[in-house]
């Protein structure tokens, strides 16, 4: 007998018990995976299946003073074609209409696109370039083209979006607007305002946790972003597009004319220090000019004669000299130690006042003034220059400001000649912006304001931060000194003997100082030897609105190199155009036809009105209007009857005004 029912049951319990035990082991293993190795696998899960994605914020706009966009971020689309994913029939059917459409949009002939597409299909190219950097509206068009409208899988359309920085106004002030890049380590680099104010423009990256659902496919977890992206703030620049445009083109024209190496212009609002225009143009190998480096801010060089202003102010402040003090410049050459200081005027200026010496830019007079005035105590001179903030950087937010150089006695490079050299702008070094800042301070009666290029940081219409006028030095010199030199600066242009007189225009006024510095003068025969032509000043000459500096490096010597010739015209055309476009200074002479009767009547009225009356005048025969105005100006109450000329006056002439109060005029 094989099996009794009882035996079957016993064995069944063994098997069932075994299964139960097995179940227990499974549950035990389950718990062990969760508890013992749980951490490890949960970490793995996180690592493998979730990832923090960043959402790029929109970079803020850079806006000019008048609300034009200087720099803004836009999306650009690159279109590529995957020839493999497209079905053969679809391809054959659509290649012609697609090529036609592409040709229509992108310009090249239909056959060109047909060829590209067929080649891609034949070579099984999955990443054929069709068009680069399309804007949004073109991209939307392309999406609707035959074949491409079937989408990425059936139509083979590959779209790559990227955000680029656009300058809607073109290359104007490109270098000052600048750019900013970020590398993979999050390190920012760049130049100009974009870099200097990058922290405002950048915004804050958003974060979103996403979960992997398949290779290359991620779905967002949860409803909200972990960190909402915050768009960058808008920057309102002080740059005025109109002035910038004028400055840019005036400089460009002059650089081209003089085949100069490079040049820069800065226009600054006198009162506030707002930089209205800043243009830097350098030459390429092909002889074209573009915004190459920020020379205006970064390039420190020997200023030459524009530095005479600083010396004159220093000497006046130290009471070493007066504008009327006379210096004997002799024949235009003065020997100091073994060095000769020369004037440009052949034959010299003879005995001239310091005022004239400034206006004619006499090197001899200035060398004498500084050398003789300070040779006993050269440090007094340097300290004076320093007290006028000349040895210090302005401290701009833009990186790369050039360092000014003013040596102290005893410093390396200082010699007995130094005072005489510094007198006309050598052995010192300044950037155009630093020079301009000083000229602006003079125009501002001694108050030195800090140049600035950003007015305001905004988030839509909300102001986040305002950059107000900053005063570097409330008084670089006394008001009197400032007034004195202002007159001289005006004379430079106005007086016939002034170095800037060639710029003179009777229609508007300018004040400033020319400078023609030599560059690389160690060997005057070398190719490198050249000139730096400068004009620094302000306009209008009285109550100036803007200060401006023009610096042009290495003009072609055969064309010209004097500051007044090379840089002066740029200054002038800026002053002229700003003047012409500024409604405040427009004056129009009214043209009036001569009319004898009217003239006589006016003369009569004018004569009467000019007289000082103590008695009631005779107004009989005058026009009612004139009579009323004369009498009322005398404090009388006038009542008129009728119109026309005065026929009768109720108070006869010769009556004391004080006694009469009311006068009735009968007109006919």
């Amino acid at each position, binding site marked *: 007998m094989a099996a009794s029912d009882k035996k079957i049951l016993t064995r069944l319990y063994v098997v069932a018990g075994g299964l139960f035990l097995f179940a227990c*082991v499974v549950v035990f293993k389950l718990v062990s995976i969760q508890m013992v190795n749980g951490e490890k696998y949960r970490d793995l899960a996180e690592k493998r299946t979730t990832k923090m994605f960043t959402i790029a914020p929109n970079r803020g706009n850079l806006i000019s003073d008048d609300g034009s966009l200087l720099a803004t971020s836009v999306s650009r689309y690159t279109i590529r074609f995957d020839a493999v994913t497209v079905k053969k029939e679809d391809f054959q059917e659509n290649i012609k209409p697609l090529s036609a459409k592409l040709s229509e949009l992108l310009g090249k002939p239909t056959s060109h696109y047909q060829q590209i597409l067929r080649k891609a299909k034949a070579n099984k190219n999955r990443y054929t370039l069709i068009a680069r950097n399309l804007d949004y509206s073109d991209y939307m068009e392309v999406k609707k083209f035959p074949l491409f409208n079937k989408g990425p899988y059936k139509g083979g359309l590959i779209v790559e979006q990227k955000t680029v920085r656009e300058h809607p106004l073109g290359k104007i002030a490109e270098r000052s607007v600048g750019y900013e890049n970020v590398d993979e380590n999050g390190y920012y680099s760049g130049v100009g305002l974009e870099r200097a104010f990058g922290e405002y423009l950048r915004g804050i990256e958003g974060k979103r946790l996403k979960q992997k659902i398949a290779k290359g496919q991620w779905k967002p977890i949860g409803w909200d972003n972990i960190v909402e992206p915050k768009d960058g703030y808008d920057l309102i620049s002080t740059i005025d597009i109109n002035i910038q445009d004028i400055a840019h083109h005036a400089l460009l024209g002059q650089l081209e004319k003089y085949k100069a190496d490079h040049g820069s212009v800065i226009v600054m609002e006198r009162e506030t220090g707002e930089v209205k225009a800043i243009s830097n143009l350098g030459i390429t190998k092909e002889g074209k000019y573009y915004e190459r480096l920020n020379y205006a801010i970064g390039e420190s060089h020997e200023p030459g004669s524009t530095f005479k202003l600083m010396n004159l102010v220093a000497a006046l402040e130290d009471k070493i000299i007066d504008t009327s003090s006379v210096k004997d410049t002799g024949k235009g050459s003065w020997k100091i130690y073994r060095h000769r200081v020369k004037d440009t005027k052949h034959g010299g200026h003879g005995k001239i006042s310091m005022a004239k010496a400034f206006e004619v830019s006499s090197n001899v007079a200035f060398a004498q003034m500084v050398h003789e005035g300070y040779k006993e105590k050269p440090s007094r001179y340097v300290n004076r220059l320093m007290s006028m903030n000349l040895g210090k950087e302005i401290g701009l937010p833009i990186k790369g400001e050039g360092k000014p150089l003013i040596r102290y006695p005893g410093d390396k490079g200082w010699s007995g000649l130094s005072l005489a050299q510094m007198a006309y702008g050598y052995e010192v070094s300044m950037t155009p912006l630093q020079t301009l800042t000083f000229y602006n301070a003079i125009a501002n009666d001694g108050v030195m304001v800090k140049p600035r290029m950003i007015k305001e940081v905004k988030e839509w219409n909300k102001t986040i931060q305002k950059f107000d006028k900053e005063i570097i030095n409330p008084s670089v010199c006394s008001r009197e000194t400032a007034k004195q030199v202002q007159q001289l600066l005006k004379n430079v242009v106005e007086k016939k003997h002034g170095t800037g007189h060639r710029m003179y225009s009777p229609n508007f006024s300018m004040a400033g100082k020319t400078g023609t510095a030599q560059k690389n003068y160690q060997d005057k025969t070398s190719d490198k030897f050249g000139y730096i032509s400068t004009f620094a000043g302000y306009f209008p000459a009285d109550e100036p609105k803007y200060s401006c500096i023009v610096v042009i490096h290495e003009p072609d010597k055969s064309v010209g190199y004097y500051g007044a010739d090379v840089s002066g015209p740029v200054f002038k055309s800026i002053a002229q155009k700003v003047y012409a476009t500024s409604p405040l200074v427009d004056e129009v002479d009214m043209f009036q036809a001569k009319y004898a009767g009217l003239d006589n009547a006016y003369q009569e009225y004018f004569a009467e009105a000019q007289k000082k009356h103590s008695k009631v005048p005779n107004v009989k025969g005058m026009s009612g209007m004139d009579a009323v105005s004369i009498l009322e100006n005398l404090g009388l109450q006038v009542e008129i009857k009728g119109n026309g000329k005065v026929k009768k006056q109720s108070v006869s002439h010769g009556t004391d005004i004080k006694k009469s109060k009311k006068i009735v005029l009968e007109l006919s």
Partner: protein
Amino acid sequence: MLALFKNINGDKALWAVVALLGLFSFLPVYSASSNLVYVVGNGTPIGHLVKHAVFLIFGFGIIYGIHRIPTHFFKGLSLIAMPIVIVLLVITLFQGSSVDGTNASRWIRLPFVKFQTSTLAAVVLMIYVARYLTKIKDEAINFKESIVPLWLPVFAVVGLILPANFSTAGIIFTMVLVLCFIGGYPFKYLMGIVGSGLLALTFFILVAKAFPDAFANRVDTWENRFENFMNGEDTEADYQIEKAKIAIATGGIVGKGAGKSVQKNFLPQSSSDFIYAIIVEEYGLVGGVVLMLFFLFLLFRIVVIANGSPTTFGTLLALAVGLPIIFQAMINMAVAVELFPVTGQNLPLISSGGTSAWMTCLAIGIVLSVSNKQHRKSKSNLNINETNPLEILSGQL
């Protein structure tokens, strides 16, 4: 409809467990469908749900139909079905649909569905063995005598399944051994059979290795999977196991919630082989243990039903078809927790397994038939009435 409910007989607890598991199965199937739809790009979520519902309704139809069949009919039915099954297996094996050189011929294509013959063969074979054990229970067992009526069909079925589906063959063979053990087949003979079984397997593998191109087989796949389980190299199966473990670990005590599984997107067999891992991920340790308890309760009811059966055949039949369900469930869960190498066994009643789910329903129906007291009332009649042609047929063999 009411009549239909009136005619529901048998163990009510078993009905309840099966119905609950069936209802519950919609959740993981629906959850897993998101992977199929959105990642694989196959069908729609509702489509997968409807398909599952249709399969389940058919399945319950099978349960209902089978449980109305009197228990002793199965003796004869198994005798008739046995040769048919063997023919079907031969057809399946040699229809030659192989995937990349490995034999994936597990299915016969029928209109609308693929039919996995091995699952039907398993049920039929188990009934056949139960019948044989019942028949010889009062006799002294002679090994030689049992070779032809018992082991020949067993080896035929297992041998035909083996090349395409090692794990199913292994499970069937194991279940046959367990059933023989319970049915009182001498232990020493069983050891001999195990030995010869292993010998046959070794022979098969050696032949397959020696002549790799002789016939399509999956020896290399088994080898990979097994080696994988034994050492810890980075392979496809490791990837699956790691994902399963991540699923279990991230599920925690109470789980992420229905449908919120992450790993379903990465586990290739998230709706069948690794469904237990996904269930734990979504319903936590609690859900996993409760599901396990459900299967243990199912085991308990099967034991109770086997115990309560007045006939030895009834007892053995309930165990013959009932135990494999539990066994298969245990294997499936064990794979998910890395107690077992990756096999490819469904979780019975839960996975969206198609026709194999129907075979589970067939088995459940048979167990319910055993528990059906209505059959017992008429049993006395049938004992007298030996005119049942099938009974006579079975007696002659």
